[in-house]
């Protein structure tokens, strides 16, 4: 096993990890503010992929440009999801919320099967096979773009959370909902806004992978469990944690692939996940509550 090979493996993992991080940011945001584990996150991501696909197939829009369509659509979906489904049961036990999102996920996946058939669809870009080489180490342009998109979204979400009034209100509602209510923050509005932002993040991650990943109704399932691991790893509610957690899981999967074949390659990240749950359930970047 040469040095280049290991370097390449780490780089592959890093790039994929960016995507995991992006999926997880939305998830962690929703969890952080509403304490809801959103099982439908993968389905939202899938909707993002379909939005990109249809924009590409019908309107001939470049997949990366299509985020201008994906973001508002998914934001709206997220807002409706929160307002009509999550909000009425916001005080219910956590597992009921988890099951609700599971139901929504089943519903969304299968309405897509019904509407657009279960066919696999592929978004094809002219720059699909552009690769950069640094020595023997190669980098796919698509993955690099996806990674950059992930970084960009992470940065934007982070800045919104830390620098804007909205962000401050979100963080206040996350840490002390009743306190936030007292200082005049419309917590309900914050809830649906946050859910909208979370869903939009899922949508963007769908857009980011669509150019190199087939689009089909149950595609979200591939990402959603990984996203849970990332969220726990990074600390529930921590945006930076989610992004770095994503990179860690991406690299763990990649390195795991060197040692274990097939499905076993995820074993490494699962072991990390279990250990984190046990010894540091607040995650690597969450406060020790």
């Amino acid at each position, binding site marked *: 096993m040469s040095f280049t*090979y290991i370097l390449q493996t780490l780089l592959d993992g890093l790039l994929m990890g960016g995507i995991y991080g992006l999926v997880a940011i939305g998830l962690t945001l929703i969890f952080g503010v509403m304490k809801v584990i959103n099982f439908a996150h993968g389905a939202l991501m899938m909707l993002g992929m379909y939005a990109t696909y*249809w924009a590409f197939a019908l309107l001939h829009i470049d997949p990366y440009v299509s985020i201008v369509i994906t973001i508002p659509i998914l934001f709206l979906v997220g807002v409706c999801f929160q307002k009509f489904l999550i909000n009425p049961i916001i005080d219910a036990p956590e597992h009921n919320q988890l099951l609700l999102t599971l139901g929504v996920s089943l519903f969304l996946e299968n309405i897509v099967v*019904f509407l657009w058939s279960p066919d696999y669809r592929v978004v094809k870009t002219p720059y699909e096979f552009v*690769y950069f080489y640094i020595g023997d180490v190669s980098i796919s342009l698509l993955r690099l773009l996806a990674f950059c998109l992930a970084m960009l979204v992470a940065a934007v979400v982070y800045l919104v959370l830390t620098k804007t009034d909205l962000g401050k209100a979100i963080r206040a509602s996350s840490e002390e909902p009743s306190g936030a209510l007292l200082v005049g923050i419309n917590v309900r509005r914050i809830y649906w806004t946050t859910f909208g932002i979370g869903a939009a993040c899922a949508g963007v991650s769908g857009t980011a992978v669509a150019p190199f990943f087939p689009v089909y109704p149950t595609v979200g399932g*591939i990402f959603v469990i990984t996203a849970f691991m990332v969220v726990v790893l990074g600390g529930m509610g921590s945006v930076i944690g989610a992004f770095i957690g994503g990179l860690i899981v991406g690299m763990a999967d990649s390195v795991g692939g060197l040692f274990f074949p097939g499905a076993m390659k995820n074993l490494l990240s699962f072991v990390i996940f279990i250990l984190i749950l046990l010894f540091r359930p607040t995650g690597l970047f969450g406060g020790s509550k």
Partner: protein
Amino acid sequence: MANTKKKRGNRGISRRDFIKGTAAVGVAAAVGSIGFPNVLRGAAPPEIQIGNILPLSGPLAYLGNQLKNGAVMAVNEINKAGGIRSLGGAKLKLLDADSEGKADLSISGVERLDRAGAVAIMGCLQSAVTIVATQVAEKYRVPFVVSVAVADKITERGFKYTFRLQPRAAQMAPQTVKFISDIARQAGEKVKTIAYIHDNTAFGGSLSGLVVETAPKYGMEVVARVPYSPRSADVTTEVRKIKAAGADIVMASGYFSDGVRVFRAMKGLRVRPKAFVGCGNGAYSDQNFVKELGDMTEYVMDGNYQANPNSPLAQKMFDHYQALYGQKIPPSAVFAYEPVYVIADALERAKSTDREVLRNALARTNLKKHVLPQGPIVFDATGQNKNAQIALTQVLGGKIRVVWPEQYAEAKLVFPMPS
């Protein structure tokens, strides 16, 4: 020019899909209330019913529906041509059962079809589901003609009522290896090493195992055997192992979605063997693979169950499917199409809809007119199509063509792949 034309065609279909699908909501809402099962009624059917268990929903619904299309087409053709003559022109009727790809659901599926009076059942695409379904069919003594399911186990259990047309894993994998050595010899190329990337399901696992076993007989060696999980998001690491192996031939097995992903990764990482050869690859024999990925799929080969392009019957089938569904018939649909004819042939000879008589007729099948690239369809004692043979296809000029064995070839193969 040609290129832009192709693209427009592609997009046109997409738009049609979109509108068709979206409009279907309204229709379904209307039809849904009426569409309740009349399967449960009617003890003495005016038609001869044939059950068809397939994953019509769930992750493999895409393939399940292809198979359904093939079977439906065959039934319609037979009915149009006058039905089963020895039974007074009785018409065939297909009864669907959705397995969702789950083995336990196939149990109730077989039972329902048995109850509904199906004379025979076809199915089920996935080996696991088929293994369970044939078991239940055996119990109820319903003849079961396996359309697609590769696992050897299916016909190795001494079942009396299970028949299979499709070449099983133990036929498919060695034949593919043999064909590789044949074409290499013909081209005067030295092929010594194989790298095999496959999904870790029953499907890829058994095929790759057999290739590892048979390769040495033809002077070849599998230098890398890399399984991947169809559920994992990233297969780059696995593909790198294949690249690192630097083998003469890269073989691949898998379903469509992961097949596409793996192939894209291989192209991206510039894996450059003398040939990409699939073995029962869900992607490489699917015209959508070529349509979606375009030029890069040129010269990709696949050892797979196929129709025989030189058979006049197959030509008719091609045209018919093209007219109905706007594309070339995928091989999986061929193997849902032909069983209907095999059952019809047995019914003609049995002159009865009694399952026992039909079973015996099926066991004595010797069908010479068919669409497959093989000799007559004859079942051995286990119920396996004795002469089942795969064909090697290659993407040539954007079309998937049968190129080997020579007597079935419709185009001249290109080997090794020009770089």
